[in-house]
């Protein structure tokens, strides 16, 4: 394992310190926590927006803190949901009286910890609402299991809910647009090579030299299929077709080509080229495109494709200004 770190058990503490260091005008760390908050929080009468999850997905989630997006991010251990006490601190720090909205990715750990935090906050008289993002079409949409994972589409939920909250909308309104976004967003990922948790010291899975995995999650969880590595165009076709098969995207869409960590931007653009071509062929109009690293899995090589169906309201919210360093509009 080759990493630029100090103590493998201290990476999260060190990272959070380094996230705030040099950025004290805009964000602050709640002392003795791994919660990062806008310096101007809580904002009176604005719905507070809190997200978070395990770390190792940077810039998610702290990079999305800023006017027009998140008010706080709760940073868990690597690939491990943060705990209810930390989440509760974030909720309290951003509650400006209009309630707090939680964006949760659909993993057992995240759901349990955020739900417990929400219960604790409600017990203290804070109004809390939430949305659970489950955009990953690689997982069967079953009510008997945990269901679909939340992956890169989460970033678009942050953006849209954040814009709505910034406009002064009520908690119910924020929830409504967040849920609409979740209903309209689909993603799927793939990987060429694994990632290594600092404290584990070894790659969390193996892939052969000419092998790739379609449908992989952002913690290296298995996908749909392992198979021979194919061309960028063929990868783009497979991923895009799986999204189109799952949801009716006729109309306007936003496209996000997300790098998993180690993939050169060059390769993301090559994928983007083909995705755009496919959508054009199907008369799907691309309203906005995002290419870059938005939701990573440490140094995993690979990418994901996200499509979000847009109506006029979502378009408007997607375009509103955002100060978040990782999603500046």
């Amino acid at each position: 394992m080759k990493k630029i770190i100090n103590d493998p058990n201290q990476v999260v503490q060190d990272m959070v310190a380094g996230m705030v260091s040099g950025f004290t005008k805009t964000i602050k760390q709640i002392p003795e926590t791994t919660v990062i908050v806008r310096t101007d929080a809580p904002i009176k009468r604005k719905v507070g927006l809190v997200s978070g999850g395990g770390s190792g997905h940077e810039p998610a989630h702290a990079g999305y803190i800023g006017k027009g997006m998140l008010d706080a991010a709760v940073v868990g251990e690597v690939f491990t949901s943060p705990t209810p006490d930390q989440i509760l601190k974030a909720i309290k720090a951003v509650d400006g009286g209009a309630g707090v909205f939680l964006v949760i990715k659909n993993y057992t750990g995240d759901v349990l910890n955020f739900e417990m935090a929400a219960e604790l906050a409600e017990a203290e008289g804070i109004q809390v609402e939430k949305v659970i993002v489950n955009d990953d079409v690689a997982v069967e949409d079953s009510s008997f299991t945990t269901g679909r994972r939340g992956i890169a589409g989460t970033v678009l939920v942050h953006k849209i809910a954040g814009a709505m909250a910034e406009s002064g909308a009520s908690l119910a309104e924020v929830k409504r647009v967040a849920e609409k976004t979740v209903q309209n967003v689909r993603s799927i990922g793939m990987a060429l090579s694994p990632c290594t948790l600092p404290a584990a010291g070894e790659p969390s899975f193996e892939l052969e030299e000419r092998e790739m995995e379609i449908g992989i999650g952002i913690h290296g969880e298995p996908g749909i299929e392992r198979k021979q590595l194919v061309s960028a165009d063929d990868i783009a076709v497979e991923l895009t077709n799986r999204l189109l098969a799952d949801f009716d995207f006729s109309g306007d869409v936003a496209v996000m080509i997300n790098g998993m960590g180690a993939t050169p931007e060059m390769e993301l653009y090559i994928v983007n080229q083909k995705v755009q071509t496919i959508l054009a062929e199907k008369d799907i109009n691309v309203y906005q495109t995002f290419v870059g690293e938005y939701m990573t899995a440490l140094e995993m090589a690979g990418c994901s494709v996200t499509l979000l169906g847009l109506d006029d309201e979502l378009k408007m919210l997607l375009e509103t200004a955002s100060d978040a360093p990782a999603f500046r509009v």
Partner: protein
Amino acid sequence: MKLTVNNSIQWFLKANEKMQENKEYLTLLDKKIGDSDHGINMARGFQEVANKLPTQDYASVSDVLKDVAMTLMSKVGGAAGPLYGTIFLKMSTAVKGTDPVDYQTFTNGLEEGLVGVKQRGKADVGEKTLVDVWAPVVDFFKQGVDFQADQLVETAENAMDNTKDIQASKGRAAYFKEKSIGHIDPGSTSSFYIFEALAEVIREGE
């Protein structure tokens, strides 16, 4: 069998030793059908418990269990944190008022813990989670007062081993679908260590 404050502290200190010793093994199990962090998470949480318990003055077993619950809840994270937190919190409530905790009360506490974790995790027996160890252990306790520590270990161990044949339908292992079969559930294994530690404490008291 009676559980004193001191017994209960010993229980978690021993459990911690096992988590530390088996940190890599638990992580390896989680690598197979999860995200390679269960050992790291449990070792971190139980270390905190072990650091804390000896420094406090506890009036009751219930208080010990509550502190264990809160510490695990705030230090483990992931799925295991709230699940174990819930178990020991429910247990703490259930045994409140009896000290030392007698067999019946303790059994009741275990059962409340099981009910709580099933609710929290929306999981039932047969889904390849720690419920698959807790449920048979609760049954075992309910069978009678006069048991040997070895039988407890055996029950928990068999239950753990049996998770190997189950296809996961809850937690991260569910993503592996049929490929989850053939691997022992990491959470069931950490639960086994907890009962192994309990058996050792009971044995010492015998």
